[in-house]
C-alpha cells in the first residue's frame, strides 16, 4: 500500500477539516466535543489492534488510559510540587504554574505516560496472554476494575476524591484550542502509524494469530512476542491519550474519569464493531457515527440514553456484526481492491470477517 494521488488527496482533506474545524465560528463552542471525537477515534483505533486485527477481545484497554492519566498528572505536579501535599488539599488551594512550568510538565508527563504504559503492557502481558477467549476478556476487564477500586483507596493520589489538575496559564480559548490540537495530532499520528503497521509483516503476523493461533505458532511465529508488542502499541497511544484527556477535563478521579470501563471501555468496543472490526477505516467511521448517535441520544433521550446504548450493542452484535465498512466491503468488493472470483460464491473479503469456532 503506497500513497497514490487520490488517497493523498483524501487524507489531505481529512487533515485540513480537522485543522480548521474549531476555527469556524459556529463550531467554536463545540471544541471540547470535537476534541472528544478525536479521542474516541483514537480509542477505536487502538482497540482494533487487538480486538479486530489480532482477535483478542479485551474489555480492559481502558486500564492504560487511566494509568497514563494518573502518571501524567503525578509527574506534572511532582516536577514542581510535593504531590502528597497537593492531593491532601483536594485542589482547594489552586496552585498556579508558570508557562514554562506548565508546558514542560505536560509534555514530560505525556512522554512518561506513554513509556510507562508500554512498560506496564509488557509486564502485564506475561500474565495475561496465556489466557484465551472468555478468560482473556474477563481477565482484562478485571484489570480495569481492580485499578479503579485500588486507586480509590490510595490517599497519595487523592483516593476516591480525585485530583484537580494544575490550571492552564493563559486564555481559556487558547486552552481549548491547545487541547483540541493535542487530541487531533495524537489521533492522526495513531492512524498514520497503524496504517503503516498493518502494511508490514507485523500486520500479517497478528492477522494470522486472529485466524488460527495454533497454526501461526506452528509456522514459527513467536505469537507471544507479537501479542505483547501489539498490546504495548495500543497501551502507548492510550496512555498519552489518557494524559491529554485528564488535563482537558481538569479533574481526575478513579471511577468516572480515569477507568470508566463501563462507559469509554464499552464505547471503544462498540465503535469498532459498529464501523467494522479488522479494517483500517472501520474504527474511524464507527467512532464518528457512534459519537453522533451518542450525542443525539444524550440530548433527546435523556434518562433513556443508556437503555438505548444497551439496545444498540445487542442489535449491533446480533444483526450487524460485520460493521459499516465490512458491509460496504461485501457489497462493493472491487472498491476495496478485492478481486471477486465469480466461480466462488463468497467474496474473498468475507473470510476475514467469517466467524470462527471458539478454540475451547
Amino acid at each position, binding site marked *: 500500500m503506497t500513497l497514490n494521488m487520490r488517497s493523498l488527496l483524501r487524507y489531505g482533506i481529512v487533515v485540513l477539516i480537522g485543522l480548521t474545524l474549531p476555527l469556524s465560528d459556529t463550531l467554536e463552542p463545540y471544541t471540547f466535543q470535537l476534541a472528544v471525537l478525536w479521542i474516541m477515534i483514537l480509542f477505536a483505533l487502538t482497540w482494533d489492534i487487538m480486538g479486530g486485527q489480532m482477535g483478542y*477481545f479485551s*474489555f480492559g484497554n481502558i486500564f492504560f488510559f487511566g494509568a497514563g492519566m494518573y502518571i501524567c498528572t503525578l509527574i506534572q505536579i511532582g516536577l514542581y510540587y510535593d504531590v502528597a501535599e497537593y492531593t491532601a488539599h483536594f485542589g482547594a488551594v489552586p496552585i498556579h504554574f508558570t508557562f514554562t512550568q506548565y508546558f514542560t510538565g505536560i509534555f514530560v508527563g505525556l512522554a512518561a505516560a506513554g513509556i510507562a504504559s508500554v512498560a506496564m503492557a509488557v509486564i502485564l502481558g506475561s*500474565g*495475561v496472554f*496465556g*489466557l*484465551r*477467549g*472468555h*478468560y482473556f*476478556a*474477563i*481477565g482484562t*476487564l*478485571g*484489570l480495569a*476494575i*481492580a485499578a479503579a*477500586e*485500588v486507586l*480509590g*483507596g490510595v490517599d497519595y493520589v487523592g483516593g*476516591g476524591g480525585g485530583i484537580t489538575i494544575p490550571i492552564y496559564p493563559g486564555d481559556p480559548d487558547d486552552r481549548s484550542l491547545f487541547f483540541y490540537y493535542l487530541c487531533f495530532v495524537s489521533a492522526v499520528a495513531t492512524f498514520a502509524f497503524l496504517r503503516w503497521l498493518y502494511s508490514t509483516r507485523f500486520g500479517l503476523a497478528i492477522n494470522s494469530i486472529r485466524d488460527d493461533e*495454533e497454526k501461526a505458532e506452528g509456522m514459527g511465529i513467536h505469537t507471544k512476542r507479537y501479542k505483547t508488542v501489539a498490546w504495548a502499541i495500543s497501551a502507548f497511544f492510550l496512555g498519552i491519550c489518557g494524559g491529554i484527556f485528564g488535563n482537558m477535563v481538569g479533574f481526575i478521579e478513579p471511577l468516572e474519569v480515569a477507568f470508566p470501563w*463501563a462507559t469509554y471501555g*464499552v464505547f471503544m*468496543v462498540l465503535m469498532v*464493531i459498529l464501523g467494522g472490526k479488522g479494517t483500517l477505516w472501520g474504527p474511524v467511521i464507527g467512532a464518528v457515527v457512534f459519537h453522533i448517535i451518542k450525542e443525539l441520544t444524550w440530548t433527546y433521550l435523556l*434518562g*433513556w440514553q*443508556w*437503555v438505548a*446504548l*444497551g*439496545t*444498540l*450493542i*445487542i442489535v*449491533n*452484535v*446480533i444483526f450487524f*456484526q460485520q460493521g459499516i465498512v465490512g458491509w460496504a466491503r461485501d457489497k462493493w468488493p472491487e472498491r476495496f481492491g478485492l478481486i471477486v472470483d465469480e466461480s466462488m460464491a463468497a467474496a474473498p473479503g468475507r473470510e476475514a470477517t467469517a*466467524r*470462527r*469456532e*471458539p*478454540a*475451547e
Partner: protein
Amino acid sequence: MDNIEILVAVPLLNVQLLLDGLLIGAIFALAAYGFALVWGVLNVINIAQGEFVIMGGYVAFVLFDNGIHPIWGLPLAFVLMFGFGWAVYRVVISWIVDSDIFTTLLATFGLSILLQQLLNLQFGSDVQVADAGFPVWALFEGMVTVSGIKVVSFILAAILAVCLILFMKNSRLGQAIRATAQDRRAARVMGIDTDRVYAMTFALNAAICGAAGALVAMIWNIQPYFGIVYSLRSFMIVTVAGYGNLLGVILAGLGLGAGEQFAAFILGSEFQIAFVVGLLLLVLVVRQYLQGRKRQAVGRSLSSGVK
C-alpha cells in the same frame, strides 16, 4: 495490618467472620451454579448474571415496600425470573447461542447495561435493603452474633440447591439438559429438542439467580449497579471449580464468601470489590501457569458436562 493482630487477639472474631462469610457464600454458590449451567449447556458466558441477581433482589424489595414479608420474594422471584429468563432467551440469546465468544460476551454485556439502566430508571440508584425483621441471636456471651435471616437464607439456599440437584438427576428435563451439555449433537440425534433445552436452561438460571437475589436483598443490600460483581464472582467460582463440578462450585462459593469477609475486615471494606477482582486475576493467572504448555485444541466438546 493492625486488624490481623485484632483477629489474633480475639479468636472469636474469626468465628464471626467465618460464619458470616459461609452464610453469604451459599448465595454466591447458587448464582455460580446457574452460571455454570449456562456456560456448560449453551456455551454462553452470561455477563448479565449479576443483573438477574439484582432483579430478584428488587422483587423481594418491592414486596417489602408493600408491606408483605420479603421472604415470599424468594418463590415469587423464582417464578417471575423464570419467565423473564425464558423471554430473554427467545428475544436475545437464541440468536447468539451458536456463535463465537466475541458475540456472546458482547451481547450479554449489552444486556447487562440495558437491565441495570432499566432498574436504575425504575428504582433509582439508592442502596436498598428488604428487612426481614428476624431476631439476631447472640452466641458466646454476645461475642458472636448471628442474624436469624442469614441462617434462614442459608437453609433456603441449601433446600433450593438440593431441589436443583434432584431435578437435574431425576427429572426428564434435567436429564435432557445434562445430555445436551455432554454432546449437543448426539442429544439432538437422540430426539432431544435442544432449543427447548437451551430455553429452559437459561430460564432456570435466571430463576436461580432471582431466588439468590431475593436472599441478597434480605441479608445484604442491592443497588442497580452492584450486578457486575456477582457476574465476576460467578465467573471466578466456576473457573476455580470447573463447570461440571457441583461440589467444587459449592465449596468455592463458600470459600469466596468467607475470604471476602476476612479481606473486608483486614483491608477495610472499601477494598472488598478490589479484593474480589484481584482474586479473580490471581485465579486466572495461576490457572494459566498450571495449564502451562498443556493447552491444545479440544474442539468444542464439553466433555465434563453438568452434574
